[in-house]
């Protein structure tokens, strides 16, 4: 759209709508347009993530984007302006246009936000609820008593106490500690939020020379001269070669799950290093066999099978602590979780009722699980209901570790790399295939005895697969 000098245009502001039912905020994941772009009606301008879904935002106007109010990655309150468009035509309602050039620019021609507050009921956009009144608490409306003539009275202007400067508690504390009043600062954060950097910049200013101020030890990132300009890309450049990436998505979920697990379930980890040469030989033999044509049986599949057999003998490993109900949940099925590094991050999809699968089926299920996970197509159902997990750190060449429990599960087994090592064999030292198993368990549910027996059982099977005959 070309805007000639005489063509009347109006700036229209688009405020973030309530995209679900009763949401108060959403995050702008990505802008699909930039300032200066011409957009069509309903052209997708942004991806927005609400608490319920990631949705595409279609443009409400055909026109030119004149301003993106918020950068990608910002969480925006419902009702806050996010983008302004310049659109053809007059402001005001259809039919209200009359001789636009005959009158000097009046208040009516200005964008709504510049106009003085209209003394009438303001219609809300659907779903916003009542417009919030400034001041933090509901204001009573003035009631005019019948019989009392309402007339303009010059009331001494009551100064409504200004809203206190917007910031966050840690930054408020920092400012207090440094003796910097927040009232005088201009926030550069989202929605004019006063950030740590703003406070430090102010400190630098009061100290006279930039950069030379004695920065207190609480200062974490960068010198006072560092005032980052808002960067629309997702990772924000910080001083001193750091890159700051907002915590979100699978990373955020993983972190929350790990923290919840590590600080609610008392973890105990046990290690067992064993000679698994017989298992390696068995795998080689199976590879020759015709029965398993087309299916690759991996050491992981054997470990998974061994875990299922060992669980049958030590069922407490396949249970869960229900804090709310004050009950221990014992599962009949082993829904075996397999930690998988996927494009989205760490996921632990599980194989339902793994104990009922024969070795070859288990191997197939593991293959399918990995493939689906790598393709990013793991169905949600596969990610819930796990009861016990395996993490294969051996693929990274690692021997042992102290895995953190998948939340809600009683045990997780880390499988190390199989290495050729000098090992005692039939009274002499020989080169054998050696593997370390690391088992973490929830000590609320599993005592040392049960955990040890379980780990020993898994070890026994891997050390000599034929021992299964004596165990099932």
């Amino acid at each position, binding site marked *: 759209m070309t805007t000639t000098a005489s063509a009347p245009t109006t700036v229209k502001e*688009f*405020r*973030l*709508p*309530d*995209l*679900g*039912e009763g949401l108060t905020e959403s995050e702008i994941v990505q802008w699909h347009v930039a300032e200066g772009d011409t957009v069509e009606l*309903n052209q997708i301008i942004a991806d927005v993530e609400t608490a*319920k*879904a*990631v*949705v*595409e*935002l*279609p443009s*409400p106007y055909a026109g030119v984007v004149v301003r993106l109010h918020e950068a990608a990655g910002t969480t925006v309150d419902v009702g806050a302006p996010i983008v302004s468009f310049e659109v053809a035509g007059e402001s005001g309602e*259809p039919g209200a246009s009359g001789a636009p050039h005959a009158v000097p620019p009046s208040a009516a021609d200005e964008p709504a936000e510049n106009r003085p*507050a*209209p*003394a*009438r*009921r*303001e*219609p809300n*956009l*659907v*779903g*916003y609820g009542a*417009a919030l*009144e*400034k*001041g933090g608490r509901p*204001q009573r*409306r*003035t*009631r*005019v*008593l*019948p019989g009392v003539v*309402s007339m303009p009275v010059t009331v001494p202007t009551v100064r*409504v106490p200004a809203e206190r400067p917007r910031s966050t508690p840690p930054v408020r504390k920092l400012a207090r500690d440094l003796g910097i009043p927040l009232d005088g600062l201009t926030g550069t954060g989202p929605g004019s939020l006063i950030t740590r950097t703003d406070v430090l910049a102010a400190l630098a200013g009061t100290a006279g020379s930039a950069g030379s101020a004695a920065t207190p030890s609480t200062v974490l990132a960068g010198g006072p001269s560092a005032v980052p300009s808002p960067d629309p890309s997702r990772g924000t450049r910080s001083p001193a070669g750091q890159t700051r990436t907002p915590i979100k998505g699978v990373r955020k979920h993983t972190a929350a799950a790990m923290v919840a697990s590590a600080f609610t379930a008392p973890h105990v980890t046990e290690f067992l290093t064993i000679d698994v040469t017989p298992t390696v030989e068995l795998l080689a033999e199976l590879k020759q066999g015709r029965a398993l044509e087309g299916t690759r049986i991996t050491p992981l599949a054997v470990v998974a099978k061994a875990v299922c057999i060992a669980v049958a003998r030590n069922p407490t490993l396949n249970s869960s602590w229900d804090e709310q109900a004050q009950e221990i949940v014992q599962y009949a099925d082993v829904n075996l979780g397999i930690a998988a590094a996927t494009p989205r991050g760490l996921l632990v999809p599980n194989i339902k009722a793994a104990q009922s699968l024969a070795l070859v089926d288990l191997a197939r299920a593991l293959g399918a699980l990995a493939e689906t996970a790598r393709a990013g*197509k793991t*169905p*949600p*159902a596969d990610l819930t209901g796990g009861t016990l997990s395996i993490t294969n750190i051996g693929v990274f060449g690692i021997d042992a570790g102290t895995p953190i429990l998948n939340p809600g599960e009683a045990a997780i087994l880390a499988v190390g790399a199989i290495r050729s090592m000098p090992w005692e064999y039939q009274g002499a030292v020989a080169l054998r295939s050696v593997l370390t198993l690391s088992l973490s368990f929830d000590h609320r549910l599993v005592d040392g005895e049960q955990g040890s027996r379980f780990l020993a059982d898994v070890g026994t099977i891997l050390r000599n697969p034929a021992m299964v005959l004596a165990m099932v």
Partner: protein
Amino acid sequence: MTDGSSPDLASGTVHPGPSRPGADELVQLVDPHGVRHPHGHYDALVADVDGPALQKLYEDMVVVRRIDAEATALQRQGELALWPPLLGQEAAQIGSGRALRSDDFVFSSYRENAVAYCRGVDLADILRVWRGNASSGWDPYTINMATPQVIIGAQTLHATGYAMGILNDGADAVAVTYFGDGATSQGDVNEAMVFAASYQAPVVFFCQNNHWAISEPVGLQAHVPIARRAPGFGIPSVRVDGNDVLACLAVTREALARARSGGGPTFIEAVTYRMGPHTTADDPTRYRDANELEDWAARDPLARLATLLDSLGLLDADYTDSVKATADAVAAELREGCLSMPEPAPSDVFRHVYSAPNSWLDRQQDHYERYLASFGPDGGTPQEGRR
């Protein structure tokens, strides 16, 4: 969703009504590749559907898909509080909707916007409720379609009751009720089928099995095809490819003819797929396999009819341009109607409660209006106003 087992395996009963072999089989006249297959029974019911009629059905589906997309956009732009998309279900709704006579009466759920379009609803009226502008969008008697029911399955009772009224009147109109697979688990739907069968009421139960009751897959509530439930009530049933507009038209015509001729109710299971979210506040990727959507996209109702039209030489540029122009005009009318909808007055809440004046309500309205007036002429803006 065919389960491969033979019909009547579970019940061992014989379907009443005209029974056909393999009742679990989908009636399909146009396959997903756009190929028209002859059908011994149903061809006769759509013998009148010539090229122009097929073109009209296609146009209808394109237009309602456009209405759906425009309304979804309006919701994203803050102009509607919520919208329940029908994407993927166009054929089931247009095929059945175009089979109806103007004196038939529709009782639908909230997703049958394409049926409302067939009934000739004013476009903006579809949006009125979702904009929070009115308690109901239109006067049901102007288009013989009740305003959409949000309570799951309740409309089936209304339809059955209306159909019993038709019996009393001795008329030959039919009540048609639309609901989803999830609704079949509701008591209301089962009660409606009991009464419909008992009275042999002229009602058609049109179930769009779109495979998802919000986040619950249909397999959770029905281990056998849903159409098999109806014979248990003494109601003949048929399963139809819900993405085949011609087949939907045929089976609906058959059911209507049965009802008009005193043959009582029919249950139609249109097997289709909700390709979008349950509503604009839902994220189906949280519970639905991406592969499933791909599978159903390959069975898209519009694509297959377009292929058929093309093979008949009926999809030239002039025609597609005119369809697009119609869809654009409808979308523009819908948007304009939405944005220019007058805001309701506070006292409108008292309207449409009683059909005749009611002194008690009038008094309440009077009190409320005087209360509002007490805020003065500025309508009660907070003293400090807006920023």
